[in-house]
């Protein structure tokens, strides 16, 4: 039995799905021990009540102007006294941009590293054993952390399902222990990344290029297949980072999530950040030179080989099939 505390994430209007997934995995980790949630924000008491219906025995709702918007400094300073009071064995945070801020800041406070991007967590006599990924998803990395209390972990999206039919919990409101004027990180705005109007999220056919294309002029090979199939051109982060395609073509956790009828991945290794954005596609074709590429673990059908041979042949076969 362990005491587990999860940090809920929300956008001021809705709870993020990761909050429910954290409650799901928290119950497994707690194995019968109490599972509580912390929700920080102003004017979000409805969200606190909702969270209390989804598997938290108590929701600690931290309110105050300093936590009206998410900031690393505001959240960190408001959370530390809550953690001191509650003294949990384990603190679970989403492996999200805000989790990347908070987990190490809290870990520093408690004098031990965090376990990040976890998909499975097992406690054994105060030791934590965590399953995560390393080398961008190429390997499963099992780690152990000892002599740390609380154990702080960030949990990968989709690692757990929400709790079904949970007993309703209670909500306790507390005032944030930090004043807005004392914050050293101040929220200015949330804005959309630049966009030209391309919206891949509704596309029914997507052909995507990855690092494997090697050079921007070689994109034409992939573009020709997209055109032959009547689909849109997508990309992994490597391609948009290099400036070979604008950001709005990027599919994945920091770009757009898609679920087309047909997804063709050309020269994409299948890093987790990309896969979360395309794995719900109905039918996935992968073409990659590396037989061990993780993309073959999510694809329905694959070809191991040189995309500059396979893709033009496929384009030709598609053109022929249309006649």
């Amino acid at each position, binding site marked *: 039995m362990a005491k587990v505390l999860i940090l809920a994430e929300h956008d001021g209007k809705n709870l993020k799905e990761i909050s429910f997934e954290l409650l799901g995995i928290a119950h497994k980790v707690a194995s019968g021990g109490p599972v509580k949630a912390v929700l920080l924000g102003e004017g979000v008491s409805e969200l606190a009540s909702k969270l209390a219906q989804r598997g938290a025995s108590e929701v600690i709702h931290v309110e105050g102007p300093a936590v009206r918007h998410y900031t690393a400094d505001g959240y960190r300073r408001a959370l530390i006294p809550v953690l001191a009071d509650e003294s949990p064995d384990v603190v679970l945070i989403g492996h999200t941009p805000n989790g990347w*801020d908070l987990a190490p800041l809290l870990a520093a406070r408690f004098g*031990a590293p965090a376990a990040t991007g976890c998909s499975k967590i097992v406690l054994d006599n105060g030791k934590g054993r965590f399953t995560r990924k390393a080398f961008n998803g190429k390997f499963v990395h099992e780690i152990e952390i000892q002599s740390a209390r609380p154990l702080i972990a960030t949990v990968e999206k989709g690692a757990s399902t929400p709790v079904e039919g949970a007993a309703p919990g209670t909500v306790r409101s507390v005032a944030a222990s930090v004043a807005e004027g004392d914050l050293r990180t101040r929220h200015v705005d949330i804005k959309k990344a630049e966009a030209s109007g391309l919206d891949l999220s509704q596309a029914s056919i997507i052909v995507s290029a990855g690092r494997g294309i090697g050079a921007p002029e070689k994109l034409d090979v992939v573009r020709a297949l997209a055109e032959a199939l009547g689909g849109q051109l997508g990309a992994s982060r490597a391609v948009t980072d290099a400036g070979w395609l604008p950001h709005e073509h990027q599919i994945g956790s920091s770009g757009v999530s898609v679920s087309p009828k047909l997804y063709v991945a050309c020269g994409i290794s299948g890093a987790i950040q990309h896969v979360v954005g395309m794995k719900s596609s109905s039918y996935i074709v992968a073409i990659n030179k590396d037989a061990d590429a993780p993309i073959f673990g999510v694809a329905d059908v694959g070809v191991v080989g040189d995309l500059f041979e396979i893709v033009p042949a496929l384009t030709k076969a598609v053109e022929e099939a249309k006649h």
Partner: protein
Amino acid sequence: MKCLVLVKHVPDSNSVFRLDSAGTWVDETNLSFTVNDFDRYALEELLKLKDAGTAQEVVALTVGPADAAAALRTCLATGADRAIHIKDEALAGSDPFVVARAIHAAIASEGFTLILGGLQAEDDNHTQVGGLVAGLLDWPFASAAVGLSLVDASTLRVDRELENNEIQVVDLTLPAVVTVQTGMNTPRYASLKGIMAAKKKPVATLALPDLGLAPKDVEAKLRTVSLAPPPKGKSAEILTGSPDEVAKALVSRIREKTGVL
């Protein structure tokens, strides 16, 4: 202002990786190493500040074995002014907290205004050294930056990349630590002149006693149990044959399974 970039010497992510005999890490013999990709963007951001006259000095720091000095030489050749190499046998098998602790000890009296690093290392993907250093220094921190600008002498504006194409704009009171995403700029390459100049730039090598730390201060709490290929769950049907043969087979699968074509 005086700026620091935290860099890591990592295996080239395009390598074909094999596991070591213990099954706890990749076999690093015959792998080529490079500066962690995320860190290259962090360095470029500081070099831009230096070009603009905002940064007076850009220092590169790494924690790692003797070979890791190559990463520092790359940074110096690209434009960093000097380098700090934290190297000690007791740091082999260290964890992110231990690394951050060593960095903290090395820079406590340096008087940096801005510390940048990559969001994560391409090998272990821990995503925490920057935040741990910020936490130990008790400085403001922001992760996943895709844009940086100075609002005034004591305020740094950071565009943080969130999910679903959203960006949070946040102001940090300096001094601060920021980790950056890839793609935020176009990292420059070292020129021949830069490579020559780098040979004369100072590299300070610091061991634990230089940091006022003892081996017991850097005992790792995080330990790797195993590294293994991902389990074969749902696995793709792999087609084989000539390009034309697999193309025809793909077309028939696509037609049958998706109704496209």
